[in-house]
């Protein structure tokens, strides 16, 4: 018994090592991953080194240009822009990744089930149509009205809003992934290798995990990349509408939005958050590319 478990563990470990080996050879993916890790480290550990308070206003130091004291300058009410970028990065990256994972999970689950089980296809796809048709803004207003106060009292203002926003973005953005995955599964299901696997009696769950999922991975990876960008920007739209984090809580999207009026006067305040969002999305995109290649057994080992 133990032997078998050990063998299986060993086998799976070596499979993941294979994936890692392949991933390492993908230069873009490696650079992307290193950059992304660096970004995460900087925004989460940065505040311990750069100890200026992101909230502290200073009437005498408004709209300062970048200097040694304030490397990114200060904003219109004298808050240090670098400290705000760090704090904003924490929120934006956390929201972006969590909401993307949630939406990917929902989307893939609905898509695979709908595509694989013919009986559930109709109902699940009509359910998807319903979600696509719901007007986003009123939906958000309702969700926030119903759940903000309970979540706030259960988890405190910050965590409560974080959960709310991640869930809101997640449940309103899974539909595209679901439709795409379902379309691919519908086609895969009729491929020879699936028919072959079915003819030898592979159970459904195993079939999905081993044969279907790995083959729909590339659209899922693209959805993941686009999903992060989408979540970061949706979050800024929510904050702007007063449905997101409290206003003293910076996020990259919000910093970008607030600075757009100052495009001509203080271009750095627009460029920095815009660049931060773009670079994180770009690095996730390369990681996705690398992962897809690494998980494709046909490419691996070539």
């Amino acid at each position, binding site marked *: 018994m133990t032997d078998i478990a050990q063998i299986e563990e060993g086998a799976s470990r070596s499979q993941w090592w294979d994936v890692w080996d392949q991933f390492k050879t993908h230069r873009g993916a490696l650079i992307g991953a290193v950059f992304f890790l660096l970004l995460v480290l900087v925004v989460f550990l940065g505040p311990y080194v750069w100890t200026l308070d992101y909230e502290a206003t200073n009437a005498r130091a408004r709209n300062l240009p970048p200097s040694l004291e304030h490397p990114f300058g200060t904003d219109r009410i004298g808050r240090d822009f670098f400290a705000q970028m760090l704090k904003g990065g924490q929120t934006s990256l956390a929201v972006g990744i969590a909401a993307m994972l949630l939406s990917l999970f929902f989307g893939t689950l609905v898509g695979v089930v709908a595509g694989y089980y013919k009986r559930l296809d109709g109902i699940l796809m009509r359910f998807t*149509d319903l979600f696509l048709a719901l007007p986003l803004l009123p*939906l958000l207003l309702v969700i926030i009205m119903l759940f903000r106060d309970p979540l706030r009292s259960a988890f405190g203002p910050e965590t409560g809003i974080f959960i709310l926003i991640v869930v809101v973005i997640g449940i309103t953005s899974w539909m595209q992934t679901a439709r795409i995955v379902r379309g691919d599964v519908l086609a895969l299901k009729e491929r020879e290798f699936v028919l072959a696997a079915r003819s030898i009696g592979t159970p459904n769950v195993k079939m999905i995990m081993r044969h279907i999922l790995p083959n729909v991975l590339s659209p899922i990876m693209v959805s993941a990349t686009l999903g992060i960008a989408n979540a970061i920007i949706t979050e800024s739209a929510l904050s702007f509408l007063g449905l997101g984090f409290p206003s003293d809580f910076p996020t990259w999207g919000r910093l970008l*939005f607030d600075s*757009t009026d100052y*495009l001509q006067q203080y271009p750095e305040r627009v460029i920095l958050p815009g660049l931060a969002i773009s670079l994180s999305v770009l690095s996730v995109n390369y990681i996705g590319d690398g992962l897809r290649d690494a998980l494709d057994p046909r490419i691996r080992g070539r």
Partner: protein
Amino acid sequence: MLNYTIRRLLVAIPTLLLISLVIFLLLELAPGDPMANVPLTVPPEVKQQMREALGLGEPLPIRFFKWMTQFFWIEPLNLIDNIFGTGFAEGELRVISWQWRSSVMDVVVQRLPQTLWVVGLSYVLGTLIALPIGIISAYKQYSLFDQLGTFVSMIGFSVPTFFTGVLLIVIFSVNLGWFPSIYDTTHVVSDWSSFVFQLKQMIMPVSVLALYNAAQISRFMRASMLDNLNQDYVRTARAKGLSERVVVLVHVLRNSMIPVVTVIALGVPQVFGGAIITEQVFKVNGLGQMLISAIQANDLPTVQTLTVIFAVLIIVFNLIADILYGILDPRIRYD
């Protein structure tokens, strides 16, 4: 396939009714008040009278029923009247906006041209750009072209349109003075110079939106092509001596289209939904601006009407996508 289509169309009717009900209840539940924009100087009693004049005093089921008959029966009759000059709907109460106290559908029709011109055209353009970029990027994976395409499309998708729009206005309207920053919805194209003006006022909003759409579609195209380029059938086709052009553009492309068709079909209803932010930045005042201002003013009849129109389009285009799957890959069967 015909059977399937008919069955889906029949299922669409209860689906639509259910979606309408859910939307109606959602809007009822949503906090908000059509009187929120009335100045605070107007006393509460007067606001209450204004609300009653809008029909807000009636119970919910009656309002839902009224709206359903207005939307699904009287408005189509009005359409017939308009086309054939008949008088079926005369004297019947249409869906009335709470803001301008007149027909919602008339304004939808008024807004369609600018939405189709700007948002529709940008979608077509975006798709036309995205497909070749996606195909070439996949075929020459990790080439300079691919890297550049990846970079541009990621920037295009991750920088929000509220920023790119303003950037273009500052460069091309303020500094260079080439294009107007405000879209003239009353402009009529009648001759060459008015056509040139139309082009000038469209070029900025169209390019902002086209970049955004192209970024998304080209990523899916590229990924899907990559998947298929490694398949056994491609090797077989090459081995049979088919030209590379035929292999890529006929066999691989056809098999790679399923996710792309899905994405494109999901995007078309959004064209009619307008592009809220871009329309606002360039003052295009299309359907997107109509929806957002109705939501802000809590103009429930307008919000309901627009969202149900979108729901119809979503159902129709998802059906079209499903039918296209069957054509692209004849192995897919729905029966």
